[in-house]
């Protein structure tokens, strides 16, 4: 009893926790404002949520200027350059998603206040994920970001498709986290600790223990569901099509990035010595994900489903550097981080254009993009930039992301890396085919029903487009800029 009562509060670094606390405070504030003013406060919600996100960016800036690595809770929570870069990425993507949501959620007569609270909660989980260096904190962060996302996917309560999207996402997500937890329990049993550093020491000794292999595989498979890697991708297209479009953008970008961040920490901090398991696993699922995602994307006629499968394939590209995790660790982390940053902006941008066009056409079919250039030249040019970036054509940002992949593969060297390089190259060409289909529709086809009224784009969507276009082009024209972030993150993640 004495021992139980002798509890001393762990030392808290309030400055390091400030971004998380700010997000939490604004999430709570939105709920309280909703309770007090009810319907009268609806208009203020997106503004409040946006201010919350920008306010939590401030402590990230001050922490970045400060630059010191802060470790809390016995190494379970680390704030270093790597986590700061990713936190900033999550918050900025979240801000763009909120800009996309404003009119969509208001016009659709959805529940506004709860929507923004859940969005902030999910972002809080992602921000926590980038600092987690412990099995328990990874698990809690994963659930904190997933559970609100299940509800957001089913947000159109009356719509059959949205219901189905929510159900499929929920069942797959929960099943995946149960599999992941079973793997975590096995890894914990062997290591005797939940901290990543202790796990690295215990499991990295090289002796081939089948239980360790099983545990590591289960954990990786759990996250493979999260990043919708083939063959664990089946939920993604249905969920993306059925969910409200801003939520789809959120899932395709922020949620997938969070899964990737968890994988980086697991592979490079917790299992650095286990390349015997990690490298073949990622080689296989990266190759499968790219190829199958692209091949199915070729046959899609609905633009959201096409972007969903293209997102699956892009996820495959992001998994490529993990296949050379042990041979070229620094380059591999750099390649994934850079790819995530560029992918976030180009994909969010593409979804913003889809939202804007759907305001007029009320359709997601690719045919409805016919002659877009004739009545909405601005949107057509923006979409061209984003599709060029996704396909990897300079000067739009995507080429630099692909360049990073090849650089990591070349640094690793060897037959397997070269083989994967060939798969990447072939897939880049396949992907160009379906991106080009949309381009042809927009620039060369005629308008389907001759309706050439211009599209009225609300201010918030214009702002979202501006942010994404500037970011996509900046990464393409000034790759040194984003490359710098990638390098900063490498050193500390390896040290952590």
């Amino acid at each position, binding site marked *: 009893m004495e021992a139980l009562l002798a509890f001393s509060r762990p030392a808290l670094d309030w400055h390091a926790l400030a971004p998380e606390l700010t997000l939490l405070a604004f999430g709570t504030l939105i709920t309280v404002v909703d309770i007090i003013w009810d319907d009268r406060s609806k208009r203020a919600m997106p503004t409040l949520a946006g201010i919350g996100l920008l306010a939590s960016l401030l402590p990230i800036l001050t922490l970045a200027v400060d630059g010191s690595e802060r470790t809390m809770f016995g190494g379970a929570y680390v704030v270093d350059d790597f986590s700061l870069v990713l936190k900033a990425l999550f918050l900025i993507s979240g801000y763009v998603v909120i800009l996309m949501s404003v009119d969509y959620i208001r016009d659709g007569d959805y529940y506004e206040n709860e929507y923004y609270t859940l969005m902030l909660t999910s972002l809080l989980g992602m921000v926590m994920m980038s600092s987690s260096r412990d*099995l*328990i904190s990874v*698990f*809690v962060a994963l*659930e904190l970001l997933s*559970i609100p996302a*299940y*509800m957001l996917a*089913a947000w159109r*309560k*009356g719509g*059959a*498709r949205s*219901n*189905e*999207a*929510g*159900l*499929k996402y*929920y*069942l797959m997500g*929960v*099943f995946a*986290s*149960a*599999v992941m*937890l*079973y793997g*975590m*329990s*096995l890894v*914990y*049993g062997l290591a*005797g*600790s*939940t901290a990543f550093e202790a796990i690295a020491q215990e499991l990295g000794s090289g002796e081939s223990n089948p239980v360790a292999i099983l545990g590591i595989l289960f954990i990786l498979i759990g996250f493979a569901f999260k990043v919708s890697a083939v063959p664990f991708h*089946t*939920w993604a*297209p*249905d969920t993306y*099509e*059925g969910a409200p479009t801003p939520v789809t953008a959120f899932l395709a970008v922020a949620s997938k990035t969070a899964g990737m961040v968890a994988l980086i920490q697991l592979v490079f901090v917790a299992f650095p010595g286990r390349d015997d398991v990690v490298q073949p696993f990622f080689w296989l699922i990266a190759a499968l994900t790219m190829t199958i995602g692209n091949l199915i994307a070729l046959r899609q006629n609905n633009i959201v489903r096409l972007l969903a499968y293209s997102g699956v394939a892009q996820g495959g590209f992001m998994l490529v550097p993990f296949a050379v995790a042990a041979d070229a660790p620094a380059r591999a982390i750099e390649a994934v981080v850079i790819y995530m940053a560029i992918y976030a902006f180009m994909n969010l941008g593409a979804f913003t254009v889809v939202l804007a066009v759907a305001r007029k056409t009320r359709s997601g079919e690719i045919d409805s993009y016919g002659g877009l250039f004739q009545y909405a030249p601005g949107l057509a040019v923006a979409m061209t930039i984003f599709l060029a970036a996704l396909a990897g054509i300079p000067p739009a940002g995507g080429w630099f992301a692909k360049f990073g992949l090849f650089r990591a593969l070349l640094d690793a060297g060897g037959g397997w890396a070269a083989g994967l390089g060939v798969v990447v190259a072939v897939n880049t060409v396949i992907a160009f085919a379906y991106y080009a289909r949309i381009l042809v529709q927009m620039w060369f086809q005629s308008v389907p029903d001759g309706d050439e009224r211009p599209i009225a784009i609300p201010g918030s969507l214009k702002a979202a487009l501006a942010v994404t276009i500037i970011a996509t082009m900046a990464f393409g024209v000034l790759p040194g800029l984003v490359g710098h972030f990638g390098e900063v993150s490498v050193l500390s993640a390896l040290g952590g």
Partner: protein
Amino acid sequence: MLLNQFLILGAVLFSVGVYGVLARRNGVMVLMSIELMLNAVNINLVVFGVQHGVVSGQVFALFVIAVAAAEVGVGLAIVLLLYRNRTSIDVEDFDLMRG
């Protein structure tokens, strides 16, 4: 200590849960199968915690229990929503969109 027996119990429970998720069509039964999987994890965590003589396994199990409650809360809400709209909780009925 009967470490093996507990681990076998955990593995069997987990397998039963996986079978249930894949084979059962009733939404509520699927949720219960997921609970089985999570409880298998809890058994593993507590047993390993005792074996290593550290408390972190039990703490992890407490986190799993708390989060599982939240998860099932959301899951039941989704199943209820489906029942209101379609008067069915057969997960195979929901196939408007096919992967």
